[in-house]
């Protein structure tokens, strides 16, 4: 059986948590299956991190375009390394980079892909991946084929591995991409309101219906001493600024109270708020996924409940 390959991603502070979660799972699976773990890291900026990973071997891909994420250059070098390592199982965190590399590598190498993984179970040497599909409404149980698979994993699926190791190191020289160039990286716009610092968030989703209803949320937030945040579609529609977005491609928040109004609880949203101390969900659909992680829920109409609650809070 080939090794388990983990594709590492760089964050500002080193190898990302999501990647270390994959390292953790890879190690336990490798022990169960009697195989080794190989991690691929890109660029030179976190080399000291890479040299201390508790895996069997680390392949460091470096060269011209490796210090910044370049979808084309990364995929090409990863495909080369993949061909060399011949892994049985490959784990990639389902981030922007994982969305690019997972499917691209699968297509390019003709390797089956399992997306949105949240776990991998082992029984009698056979693996089954569990994927979260249909916006979290169903789980797919997917037997990993005998010739292996690539699994893209939703961040937060396992604890991160922070053990120190002494892996074998292999240097790999990557070619520059002829097709693609990173022109610049733009930091997010600074906002007057930092939702990651707020204790109380009144968070609105598509249930808000339109910008005309936003004052209802602003009013309630004010009455609670909190601020308004939102799900992605509200930002995409231009109703609230990007800085207010909670989730995978927005901010991660951990307030004392997260009042989710008209938010269905897609995995990408939950990723940004599941650790809030108290989650109260207002959603007319009792079976919405948000109800599975909320502490309290109501199927009241948010457009009625928000003003009624604000009124009561203001009235004393």
């Amino acid at each position, binding site marked *: 059986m080939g090794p388990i390959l983990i594709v590492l991603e760089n964050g500002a502070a080193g190898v990302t948590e999501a990647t270390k979660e994959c390292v953790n799972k890879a190690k336990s699976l490798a022990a169960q299956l009697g195989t080794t773990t190989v991690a691929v890291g890109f660029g030179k900026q976190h080399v000291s991190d890479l040299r201390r990973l508790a895996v069997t071997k680390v392949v460091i891909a470096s060269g011209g375009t490796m210090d910044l*994420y370049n979808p084309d250059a990364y995929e090409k070098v990863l495909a080369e390394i993949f061909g060399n390592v011949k892994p049985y199982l490959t784990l990639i965190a389902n981030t922007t980079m994982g969305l690019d590399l*997972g*499917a691209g590598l699968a297509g390019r190498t003709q390797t089956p892909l399992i*997306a949105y993984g949240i776990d991998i179970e082992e029984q009698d040497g056979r693996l089954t991946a569990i994927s979260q599909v249909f916006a979290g409404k*169903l789980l*797919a149980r997917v037997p990993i084929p005998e010739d292996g698979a690539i699994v893209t994993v939703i961040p937060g699926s396992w604890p991160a591995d922070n053990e120190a190791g002494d892996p074998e190191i292999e240097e790999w020289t990557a070619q520059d991409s002829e097709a693609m160039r990173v022109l*610049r990286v733009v930091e997010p716009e600074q906002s007057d309101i930092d939702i990651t610092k707020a204790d109380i968030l009144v968070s609105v989703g598509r249930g808000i219906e339109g910008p005309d209803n936003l004052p209802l949320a602003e009013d309630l937030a004010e009455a609670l001493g909190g601020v308004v945040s939102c799900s992605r579609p509200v930002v995409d529609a231009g109703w609230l600024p990007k800085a207010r977005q909670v989730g995978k491609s927005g901010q991660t928040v951990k307030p004392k109270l997260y009042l989710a109004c008209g938010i*269905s609880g897609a995995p990408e949203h939950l990723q940004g708020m599941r650790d809030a101390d108290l989650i109260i969900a207002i959603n007319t659909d009792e079976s919405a996924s948000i109800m599975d992680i909320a502490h309290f829920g109501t199927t009241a109409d948010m457009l009625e409940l928000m003003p009624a609650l604000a009124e009561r809070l203001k009235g004393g």
Partner: protein
Amino acid sequence: MRLAVLLKTVPDLVEELALDEDARTLLFDEMSYVPSEWDDQALEEALIIKEESGAEVTVIAVDTGDVDTMLFTALAKGADYAVKIVGDFDAAMSNWQKARVVADYLGRGDFDAVLSGVQAIDDVDGQLPGLVAGFLGWPHASVITEVRVAGGSHLQLRQEYAGGLVAELETVTPIVVGVQAARKPPRYASVAKVRQVAKSATIDEVEADVAEARLAGVEYVRPVAAGHAEMIEGDIDEVVDRIVAILEERNLLRRA
């Protein structure tokens, strides 16, 4: 610039998913389908490019059921051509298989850029844009929120990462792009307009063979949630009372 936009339908989550709990299978024929929302974003971005620089937009769908309305709607919104890839296909067809037939079709054409939704809710075996690009050996990028023609055969893309960090990429064509969100919310086409287009426009049909699926024995189950919210019952006033009590208990109410 010739743009292809890949469209597909997915089960409508507004309705209960049709699951045979004993057989752990999805009853694909018993669900209603809607266009995948991210594909709608991809179409919008393509139409914006068309308005900016006169690109030609071809929408493409694999015939896994009723995709005609979706294609006519795209034409009504401003797409130039619609292609339906037909064969022995059904609603249970996997993304891998769809990607295979789409890649074969695209490989024979001369499209400069292929846009599709970054993902879809039913992508068990992977996202279409990456798979298609991988099969073709073309470069690709996902989670894109802007595609602009940058003179000649180059495109400029905005790719989004966690926390709102954005990279600007310059790429040659052909390229496959997974669109997260268009620069503007997707436009609407009125039912009347779609009906009118359905009468006058044609959908080109292209035959293809079914590709082999790569995953077998996929089972679907409902998640056993670690917990469920304690539901607050009653009319609005009762719900308000209870929420206030919960906040009070946890010292989350502002003292005047």
